[in-house]
């Protein structure tokens, strides 16, 4: 099971990111645990300077803007 975190304070792009990851995981049949990280100190602790950020198994894989579908699929592979 992959541990996926979406970093963001609840802006439209953050919600779109969560939704896109859920869809991709469902489509691929990958089991993920998706958490939203919304408090600022925790977000900046990951060192991202643009939201939404995505963390997969403790590693920052994306920061700034809604990630592309192909990128999400590569994280879940």
């Amino acid at each position, binding site marked *: 099971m992959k541990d996926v975190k979406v970093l*963001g*304070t609840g*802006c439209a*792009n*953050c919600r779109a990111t969560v939704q896109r990851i859920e869809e991709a995981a469902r489509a691929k049949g990958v089991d993920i645990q998706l958490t939203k990280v919304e408090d*600022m*100190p925790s*977000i*900046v602790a990951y*060192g*991202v*300077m*643009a*939201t939404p950020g995505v963390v997969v198994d403790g590693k920052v894989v994306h*920061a*700034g*803007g809604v990630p*592309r579908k192909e990128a999400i699929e590569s994280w879940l592979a």
Partner: protein
Amino acid sequence: MIAATWPSARPKSFLGVAAIAWLAAYSVLVPVSEAIVAALPVDRASHLGSALQFFFYDTPKVLLLLTGVVFVMGLVNSYFTPERTRAMLSGRTGGLGNVLAASLGVVTPFCSCSAVPLFIGFVQAGIPLGITFSFLIAAPMVNEVALALLLALFGWKIALLYLALGLAVAIVSGWVIGRLRMEAHLEDWVRDLARTQASVGAGSTTLAQRVQAAFAAVRDIVGRVWPYVIAGIAIGAAIHGYVPEDFMAGLMGREAWWSVPAAVAIGVPMYANAAGIIPIVEALLAKGAALGTVLAFMMSVIALSLPEMVILRKVLKPRLIAVFAGVVATGILVVGYVFNAVL
């Protein structure tokens, strides 16, 4: 899908062809709009005919310019990631740092929802507060949508003037905030954060990826903004005949000295993106409001907003927020007065 893979496979030839196609489309705007009106059952010489011609000419012109500018800025943005900008700014002090920060604010991709993480990233890298603020003021104020729309509706001189004055406000405001030594007015948890090393993340970007990023910017920004643009042009066309030409002149004209502070005072609590505000700007200008007053209004709406201050409150104590708003508002005020005096 050939159309989707060609830009990626041969980005250089794609950019060349795209530029030629863009110029070709731009050069046929007038004949095409005339042809459309001629095909409609209206008299070209009538008021309705000329309004329609204006609409069919202006709408594609503005959208074409917007798409072009957003695409080019998308390409430019791909060279300036926030991490890279931070690395370029760390270790800078003094006025030149403010100039560099404001300039980078124009070309670095920025979304106001990322203002806080970006602010903290800068502070953690040891970038002085004043320089960080120069960046944070310039980034939303001088953006590609504002510049593209000013260019399309009012010409390159006013777009350039807005760029120069926006930079000037950001540079001077940041410099003043730096001189005030307000570091103690950061929220405690921000001050106590560990310093990080400013470094540029590895990874090279190909031209094909930059073109893709530029396409994504066009889809995102033009896709979001076009209804405002069309509404703005429609409003501009509609009010043209029905509101007296000098309706706003007494209220917001050059003679009314209090109009600039009033415009700023009204603009600060308002929150709109550049596209939403342009229709209002166009209507005001067309009806005799002074250019400096209108630009001051536009700057205060875009650069200073209550939601942004609520977001910044997470990292700044109230006094620093008040100083930030006060200094920037003063800068905008000066811009408005100078403009009205010179033009």
